[in-house]
């Protein structure tokens, strides 16, 4: 009897373990196959050569005389470093993303602070108002700025009719328009983690600072900002990383001299049909972003564990 019970217990336990592993396996395998494996393939193809064929690249591994030959072609990377275009595109992507992130932070921080300070009843409405735009079409929100910024757009029409300017200011198809677009599109992603962090902040710390004689400005910079550091980093990463690889915004609002790496990749792929070079562009972009991505990962997981 006792033996039977032990066997049954054993069976139930292993059954549970199997269930458990099954449950883990489903999302795990999906993400492995459709998120991680693709990067390996990108890496592989970045070492291939372009070929006029379907698909338009050579195989790395071939069988010749019964031997497996692996042909690693570094030509794509050499090409990227030999042509100034790519280096400039990487640098200007990072510059544009950095400046936009900073602008988002400068605008988003006081906004998040004001929302977190609002009475509980209006807080949710304000938060909703901030999120709402990001639920409508991204493309259409960027499109809206074409009409606003173009030479015969709303701003120029207004300024011209008021007599403030004599000829239209060129704003569309400039870096300025790209900044506006990125800040506009990504501002909610900056505000959300900041707000979440500020709500977690124990308000008695702010009161304690005030009680000890610190002015509101001192309290902001000595207490609130340091204690919302995790939110600041998370918000900045949420803006910076996607902004580096942004394609739609420089395509629609940027000009010919706006070089961003996302656009370069798109053109290599769709216009030049050079998949290996596009892959090499992606791999280097990933290499540049891997540290910020891991940073974001760590912050995100830390917060998940803390909660």
């Amino acid at each position: 009897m006792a033996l039977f019970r032990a066997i049954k217990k054993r069976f139930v336990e292993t059954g549970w373990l199997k269930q458990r592993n099954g449950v883990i396996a489903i999302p795990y395998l999906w993400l492995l196959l459709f998120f991680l494996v693709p990067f390996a393939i990108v890496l592989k193809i970045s070492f291939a050569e372009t070929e006029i064929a379907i698909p338009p690249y050579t195989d790395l591994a071939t069988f010749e005389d019964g031997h497996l030959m692996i042909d690693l072609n570094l030509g794509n990377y050499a090409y990227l470093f030999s042509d100034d275009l790519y280096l400039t595109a990487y640098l200007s992507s990072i510059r544009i993303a950095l400046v936009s992130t900073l602008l988002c932070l400068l605008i988003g921080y006081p906004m998040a602070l004001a929302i977190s300070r609002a009475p509980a009843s209006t807080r949710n409405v304000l938060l909703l108002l901030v999120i709402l735009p990001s639920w409508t079409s991204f493309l259409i929100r960027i499109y809206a700025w074409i009409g606003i910024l173009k030479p015969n757009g709303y701003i120029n029409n207004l300024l011209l009719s008021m007599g403030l300017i004599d000829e239209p200011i060129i704003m569309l198809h400039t870096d300025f328009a790209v900044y506006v677009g990125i800040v506009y599109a990504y501002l909610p992603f900056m505000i959300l983690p900041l707000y979440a962090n500020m709500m977690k902040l124990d308000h008695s710390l702010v009161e304690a600072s005030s009680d000890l004689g610190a002015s509101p400005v001192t309290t902001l910079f000595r207490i609130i900002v340091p204690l919302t550091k995790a939110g600041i980093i998370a918000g900045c990463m949420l803006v910076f990383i996607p902004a580096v690889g942004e394609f739609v915004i420089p395509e629609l609002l940027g000009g010919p001299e706006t070089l961003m790496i996302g656009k370069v990749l798109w053109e290599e792929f769709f216009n030049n049909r050079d998949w290996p070079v596009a892959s090499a562009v992606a791999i280097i972009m990933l290499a540049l972003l891997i540290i910020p991505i891991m940073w974001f990962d760590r912050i995100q997981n830390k917060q998940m564990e803390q909660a």
Partner: protein
Amino acid sequence: MTLKHLSQGPSPVLLELKNLSKSFDGHQAVRSVNLQFYEGEIFALLGGSGCGKSTLLRMLSGFETLTEGKILLNGEDIAAIPPYRRPFNMMFQSYALFPHMTVEQNIAYGLKQDKLKKEDIAKRVDDMLKLVHMESFRLRKPSQLSGGQRQRVALARSLAKKPKLLLLDEPMGALDKKLRGEMQLELVDIIKQVGVTCVMVTHDQEEAMTMADRIAVMHAGEILQIGSPHDIYEYPNCRYVADFIGEVNLFGGHIAEEEPSYVVINVPNLVAPIYIDHGISGPGGERPVSVAVRPEKVRLSDQQPDEQYNWGKGIIDDLAYLGQHSIYHILLPDGQFIQVTQTNDKRRERPFELEQEIFVSWSPDSCVVLEE
């Protein structure tokens, strides 16, 4: 009335609250409170949750605006001064230690706001660390401290600026029971050593009695009674105070005789009427009153007392032996229970038993009349 500070000669008034009121969306949290705090005393605002004590404290610290009234510091109204300019410092219930700063930086924070010289700040921080015996923890972060240590740091931080008034918000609220007793005495020692005037808020009557020189009992935004711990315990002025401070047995009755030196009250529950050896104030004449008797003032006996007054008869309904003392629940004939505590100072040959008939009695000076 024996106020401690009066016995040492009167101290000057430091802070005076005049007609202080606060309402939130039509709800009156504090109703025209008048209070005086004397220099050097520890004053406790005692009451249940929602009685307005915390709101009152937050008005003192400046975190709540007043709806009405004045806060006079040495005669000057400071009601409009923001918290960061008030010469008061608060020890928060959660301590509110800045988690990103070390112990040292926490204590120095307030001093830095005053733009003191670096050496002066360092000196003052050292003094404070010594005062609370935390010298060896100066470089720790709050998360690396125990509850009692955090409280010491919080106290040091709020004392560092030599405030005119120290505010304590539920000072033991974040500590476990065992630590409370020790910290209460230590806190009082430090406060008295520094000599700062202190207003504390607590819901724990034991804490208020242990720490404070004077206590104000608050209920529904009003102050019901102000007095020394002794006065408030022995001479509560109303049912609420009697009930809130410790356990109490209440007997309803009618005044039978009222003289300046004594009162006799008929209580249907008891065999003999109650006799009180002092006169009471009140409108006079025959009227319903309550008489309060503390459980430890009641004597138990299996012999019928031969006195004329102050006794009754009942059955032991429940008893709990707690070592040092025992608690008895006595059922009176009409169904009322009274609670009695007896010190187990001698070993009784025949301990009282459940369902046993028993006589309760007390002396004329151990009960208080509470007007309805």
